[in-house]
């Protein structure tokens, strides 16, 4: 049901964990619906220097989180904001139709983290 790439990212997820002194954190989802994704960013000169994730969810949720961190690493914030859910799913060679909503979360979590960073910048 899942592509080899999805299974690879599920089995060996990239960039799992927390960044204790993260510059920004983004979280989307809700435990009651079965998925939560949390993205931690370390940002330097408007570029994503380090990125980590934590996810509660199914295989697709974990694989999309892992993939989005790979896609976003070393990108500028503006570039990272252009990463779409569709792009994440395509990069994973597609997802089963009933799982497409998880891939939305991965990009959403990334965007939420960037938003969080920009809010903080404004406040500073």
């Amino acid at each position, binding site marked *: 049901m*899942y592509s080899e790439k999805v*299974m690879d990212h*599920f*089995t060996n*997820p990239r960039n*799992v964990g927390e960044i204790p002194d993260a510059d920004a954190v983004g*979280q*989307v*989802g*809700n*435990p*009651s*619906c*079965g*998925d*939560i*994704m*949390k993205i931690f960013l370390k940002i330097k000169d408007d570029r994503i220097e380090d990125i980590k994730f*934590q*996810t*509660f*969810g*199914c*295989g697709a*949720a*974990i694989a999309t989180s892992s993939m989005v961190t790979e896609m976003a690493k070393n990108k500028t914030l503006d570039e990272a904001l252009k990463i779409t859910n569709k792009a994440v799913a395509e990069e994973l060679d597609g997802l089963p139709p*009933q799982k497409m*909503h*998880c891939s*939305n*979360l991965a990009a*959403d979590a990334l965007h*939420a983290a960037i938003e969080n960073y920009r809010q903080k910048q404004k406040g500073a």
Partner: protein
Amino acid sequence: MRRVYFDHAATTPVDPEVAELVMKYMTESYGNPSSVHSFGREVKKPLEYAREQVRKAIGAAHVGEIAFCSGGTEAANMALRGAAYANRQKGNHIITTAVEHHCVLTTCEQLAKEGFEVTVLPVDQYGRISVEDVANALTDQTILVSIMHANNEVGTIMPIAEIGKMLKSQERRIIFHTDAVQSIGKLPVDVDQLNVDMLTFSGHKIYGPKGIGVMYLRRGTWWQPIMYGGGQERRRRPGTENAPAIIGLGRAVEMAVANREEEAEKLTKLRDKLVDRVLSSIPNSRLNGHPTERLPGHASFCFEFVEGESMLLSLDMQGIAISSGSACTSGSLEPSHVLLAMGIPKEIAHGSLRVTLGKYNTEEEVDYFVDNLIPIVERLRKMSPLTGGGACTPCACAGCDQSKK
């Protein structure tokens, strides 16, 4: 790779002896049982023998009370709709429970759309209903009650015999159906002891073929067919009989009942060991369903902070087959209706895992499973943002809103 099958509530391997029998009636004795010639006659006889095997297995009084159809789902459709339509003049109220298999629940939903009044009884934390719950739901319009003997997702056993007795003592004639798909061959199943008028089960959960099932209909019960055609199965289920599968089911149910006690004892021991090891070695885990009133080889767990499918996939990569919730619900995103009906919070219900043992499983396989499960849960928890404790801030979730559309 090593493979371990722990999903016997989903389906079972066909017993080699049964498979051989089925093969014989596909390739050698392939006549149509309705045919008068020798090819037909040599199938008709074993087919009727299978009916006798079923009659005996469930303690029915007459072979004419047994009708074969395509499985547990069709049997429940026949039983419920046939009884509902035939008794419509007497009343329009039907009672069932919130934890039934979809083949009963969805049929009742359809009957509700067709104008029947349906009461879906809630269950307690173990997934059980009591005799009083049913008694209190009765009205002067009640014609039919359908309650499963044992639950497929959590293994809880319902007090069918007591409910049946209470229903019999009513002045009104109320038809009582039980879905015995999960209990046959595992618990004593006798239509008189259970006080049921209709009982349905399936071949593929008892080491028989898939796509074959049984509806028992007590003589004198008002019922009408839901399919029309030829005169097969006393017009209860027209269409050329699936003779190979019927004959296979007959032998399968005979063996299942003959070996039941010995089998149940072995499976209970294995299961208890499995449950003990899981609960004692994995923190924040719980057993779903009733602690003692449960099917012999059945264990259902919830592991907090992890999601079921990711556990299922990880175990699958180690060759271990289990299920999360019910196999039928895996296509949807909602957690199992059974766990929710038992009051388990959604976020915990997402972390459910069902292990159902069968006759070829060994103690060594139980150890292999637990040894693999421990690091899998640990790994997934490490990945989970929930583990750190502290409530997750509920945030707008575009994804989940979409999934509801």
